[in-house]
């Protein structure tokens, strides 16, 4: 199905890109930027997953990345905290700046990058050998924090921020895997918040959840952006429309269009964006 309808858009995308009409998002951007991505390209072996992407991520806002499967949106997300390097035979070009600092400079330890840029995964993954409480503070523990009072404070604070405290405060010693799917995902969010990152990346955080659990996570994302910069990948167009301030549309490893969500969804500049959003392909 996908292959059949993709033929025409692909051609036109290539034509447009050859004409050099890459979207100019600078005009709409507010001054505060968390990430500045310049000419980012990523290869897996010979395959080019990301092709010369330039994009700035606004601070204290939600940026949604949309696009059909295999368009490179997850790769782009993982490049923001160097998680893509876990895949063997990857290569990258270009720069990614976090608050002006080059994340790929040889002086920087990827572990430090990931402490500053947290990540939530598609499938909730609380550690099965640990209790709810242990799951939340494990990041701090393994990073050398021993002070129990501090850990307890951070435990409650993180669970409150993840809107999970009231549901689990009496069950902190139960296994993390005893929670429901939506609660597990919020536990993972609490776990990521506990190390106090500056940014939270989310890779389709709701795709395995039912609508009620999804609504809770979406509400949470909305609340979290007061304190954090959030970048989320989503397959769900309505969700991108509901939760994000900015939307980036990726296709075949390229950034086709990027701008305020309201503009992308109501008046996209590119025809591919419109076709994808209206469900004509992807």
């Amino acid at each position: 199905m996908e292959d059949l309808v993709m033929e025409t858009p692909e051609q036109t995308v290539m034509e447009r890109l050859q004409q050099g009409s890459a979207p100019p998002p600078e005009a709409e951007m507010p001054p505060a930027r968390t990430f500045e991505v310049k000419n980012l390209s990523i290869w897996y072996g010979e395959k080019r997953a990301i092709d010369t992407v330039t994009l700035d991520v606004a601070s204290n806002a939600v940026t949604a990345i949309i696009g059909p499967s295999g368009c490179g949106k997850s790769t782009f997300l993982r490049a923001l905290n160097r998680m893509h390097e876990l895949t063997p035979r990857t290569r990258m070009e270009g720069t990614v700046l976090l608050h002006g600092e080059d994340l790929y400079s040889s002086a920087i330890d990827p572990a430090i990058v990931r402490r500053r840029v947290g990540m939530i995964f598609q499938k909730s993954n609380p550690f099965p050998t640990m209790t709810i409480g242990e799951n939340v503070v494990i990041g701090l523990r393994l990073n050398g924090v021993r002070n129990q009072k501090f850990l307890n404070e951070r435990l409650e604070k993180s669970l409150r921020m993840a809107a999970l405290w009231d549901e689990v405060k009496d069950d902190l010693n139960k296994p993390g895997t005893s929670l429901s799917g939506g609660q597990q995902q919020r536990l993972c969010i609490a776990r990521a918040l506990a190390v106090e990152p500056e940014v939270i990346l989310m890779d389709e955080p709701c795709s395995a959840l039912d609508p009620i659990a999804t609504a809770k996570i979406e509400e949470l994302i909305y609340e979290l952006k007061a304190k954090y910069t959030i970048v989320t990948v989503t397959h769900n167009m309505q969700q991108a429309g509901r939760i994000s301030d900015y939307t980036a549309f990726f296709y075949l490893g390229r950034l086709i269009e990027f701008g305020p969500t309201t503009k992308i969804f109501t008046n996209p500049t590119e025809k591919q964006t419109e076709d994808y959003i209206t469900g004509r392909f992807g």
Partner: protein
Amino acid sequence: MDTRRSDNHPWRRFKSALASVIAFISAAFVITPLGLVFFYLLVNGASSVNWAFFTKLPAPVGAPGGGMANAIVGSLELLAIAGIIGIPVGVLGGVYLAEYGSARINSILRFLADVLNGVPSITWGVVVYGLVVLRFKGFSAYAGGLALGLIMIPLIVRTTEEVILLVPNGYREASLALGVGRWKTIVHIVMKTASKGIITGILLALARVGGETAPLLFTAFGNRFWNHSLNQPIAALPLQVFTYAISPYDDWHRQAWAGALVLVTGIFCVNVLVRVLTRGRGASVV
């Protein structure tokens, strides 16, 4: 209607019943040897398994009573030495194969570990005899433990590797995404998640070498008395069973049966322990 008729076809039902019967008979064949071994050991050995067997030294030929206390303790000492050598090397080797290294080199290492697992156990005895016994001019508990430890290494390498590979990648990524380093992730997240499987592999390896006789013949050598120094020859239960079984004396034969019964019971208990460990909560996670 057509399908219903063919479902009730007598020929098909006969074939199905026949397959069930054959499977049942095969299963019975698998279990029978175990039953026979226990039956024989109980019939011939149970009468000699008494308090003295566990507390007394072997009696001289012709003298009544006596036991295998020194061999039981000796086996435990040998297993301790084997474990000190085999467990860390085996577990870390398995971790390396599962988490580090290139696919190409790892497939070679894996193949070599499988070859080592197939090496006849007496070969290990010869190797240790040449490397240790000749050099230090004497049989010793160290040499016996080393031979057993070397047998354990490839066993533990392979089981550890397998259970670590079963740990879903999502847990590694979750930990790394918290800014936890790779080694800490492997120790505190991956190995902890796989700990039951790793312990199971260790216990099975101990049970396997606990019953080995051949590698001890010219390393630990055996001892009719208490071993007072690990530099000296030491008794071991399977070795004692072997020595007594090939002797011409009836009372030694009875002791050999008893020793074999104790040995098999011990190995059986380890296997039961493994079953208990792998059951219940967390069993799904390796």
